[in-house]
């Protein structure tokens, strides 16, 4: 049986729609009353694992799920060995450095060396500031990172920005982008290599159902 790891939250509805185009009906996971974490399709060919966003690459990398849908931001942060198969285009957002609007910083390079930067994505932030050759102290937070500059704990944050409204409402402004992120269909490399049809037909059907250039 094919196992697919799906992320709870913003990507779930679109993920279910893409798998529907490949003939796999995971709509039961969208039911508000559903409390099951492992949901089979009515056809019995596949099952979905309903997991947290950050856990999708883990289930796929260990081979417990052959396929999964997760944001590029999570893949870049966790750096696990999964095969990126299709850019699904939805869930678009950007990873950005943001500061208080009143701070006067206009570029990341303007930040003072050894200042504190708060983020949930410390691996991405570390890679970015290393490339800038700017030494910073990274502070890991699990959420509401906007509070870092507001409370004075950090000079800047590195976080996902979709519409920018949360930043604006908290008096912050994005000054530089690290990368653009969209949802990706990922696979377990060894399972994909050993596949003799069932997985590749699903991947091809999802690719065909994905509008070209939808990620831009």
């Amino acid at each position, binding site marked *: 049986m094919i196992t697919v790891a799906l992320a709870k939250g913003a990507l779930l509805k679109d993920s279910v729609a893409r798998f529907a185009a490949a003939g796999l009906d995971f709509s039961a996971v969208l039911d508000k009353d559903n409390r099951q974490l492992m949901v089979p399709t009515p056809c019995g060919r596949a099952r979905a694992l309903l997991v947290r966003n950050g856990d999708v690459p*883990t289930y796929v990398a*260990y*081979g*417990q799920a052959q396929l999964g849908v997760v944001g590029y931001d999570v893949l870049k942060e966790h750096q696990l*060995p999964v*095969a*990126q*198969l*299709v*850019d699904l285009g939805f869930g678009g957002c950007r990873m950005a450095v943001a500061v208080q609007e009143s701070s006067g910083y206009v570029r990341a390079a303007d930040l003072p060396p050894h200042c504190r930067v708060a983020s949930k994505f410390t691996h991405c932030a570390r890679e970015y500031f290393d490339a800038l050759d700017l030494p910073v102290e990274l502070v890991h937070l699990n959420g509401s990172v906007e509070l870092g500059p507001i409370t004075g704990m950090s000079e800047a944050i590195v976080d996902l920005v979709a519409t920018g409204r949360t930043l604006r409402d908290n008096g912050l402004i994005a000054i530089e982008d690290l990368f653009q992120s969209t949802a*990706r269909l990922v*696979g*377990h*490399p*060894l*399972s*994909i*290599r*050993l596949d003799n049809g069932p997985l*590749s037909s699903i991947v091809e059907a999802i690719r065909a159902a994905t509008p070209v250039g939808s990620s831009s």
Partner: protein
Amino acid sequence: MALQPAAGAKDLNPRQVETNRQLTERLASVYRLWGYDEVSPPRVERLATLMAGGAIDSSDIVRLVADDPLGLRPEMTASIARAACTRFADRQRPLRLWASGTVFRTRSADEGGQCIEENLQSGVELFGVSGSEAEMELLSLLMASIQTLGLQASQKPRLLLGHTALMDLVLRPFSGTLRDQIRTALIDFDRLAIESFDLAEEEKSRLLSLMDCRGTADQVLAQLTSLCGEQPVFEELRRLCVHLALAAQAQAVTIQLDPTFQPHFELYTGLVFQLVCDGRSSPVVIARGGRYDDLVSRCGAKDYRAFGAGFSLAIDPIREMISDLDAAAHHQPDVLVAFSTASNLESAMERQRSWHQQGRTAVMALEALASKQEAEQQAKAQGDLQLDWVDP
């Protein structure tokens, strides 16, 4: 707080140890039939040896705190190759060696800190054979080895074959950093990385079709011939697959040729292979190997004999797969020697010795028991043992 072993270190129970021993002994008997001699390479080595000339990343090695740069072996090939090129340098080739033992790797644990992976492996190395005859012997030996392990057809054993010459063909149009990036993307099966490279659409399509090119040797080589023309390595691979077909069929092993299949570390310089089975919930690699002439050369072998190839079987995942089958084989004591208060331990131990001389497994009740009934109860509680009651 209870004392815990280091994360990832193996702390096995008697049944697991017994199954490991049985598996390694079964494999050893096959290696001996094929004329391989046992060696026991050191667990601790200098980092320079362990990194196998850069093929293995130093971050994978469990390093020891010492004045010298030392670490625990992440595999045994480098140490055996060094021995083959130094103290066994004058021995007749082909030189056939086998070894079994634990190997150690390290990685960053998700929660931070170091996670050690300790694994028992058993494998063979064949030195001094330049042609594909070495691969024919090794893969035939691998088939004989898995026959003795008793894998089931339901575990769908599949032999994945790749060759550095096939990968070189795929990468022939590229050079420098781009070549390395494309190689990594092909090995990782990263289609999006291939699509993102600054290449002509035609070139990307070619790479993507090669990434999807896998199957029987006939299918794959026909496709590659149409793309690159006939190459000397194709005939070598055809011969190998034809030779293996019968043995593979008998073991229900499917052979899959895959031009973009390569291990990440660049130890291999010819054929590479992995034997993969269906585990309880995901595919499990139970054996891996290939040709590593460059490593033998780096170990100081003269050019005309710098040839080496081998494979290793991972015992722990094999034990997990066959543990249900082998449950009955676990060695249990069958006699309980107990003595009454009128007798003594010394006389009971004499009786135990006589059981041992008959080849029977006998254990002692080390304290005097008040009655035979009590001794019978103990014998029953310990797994229905036969009671030898010592009472003058």
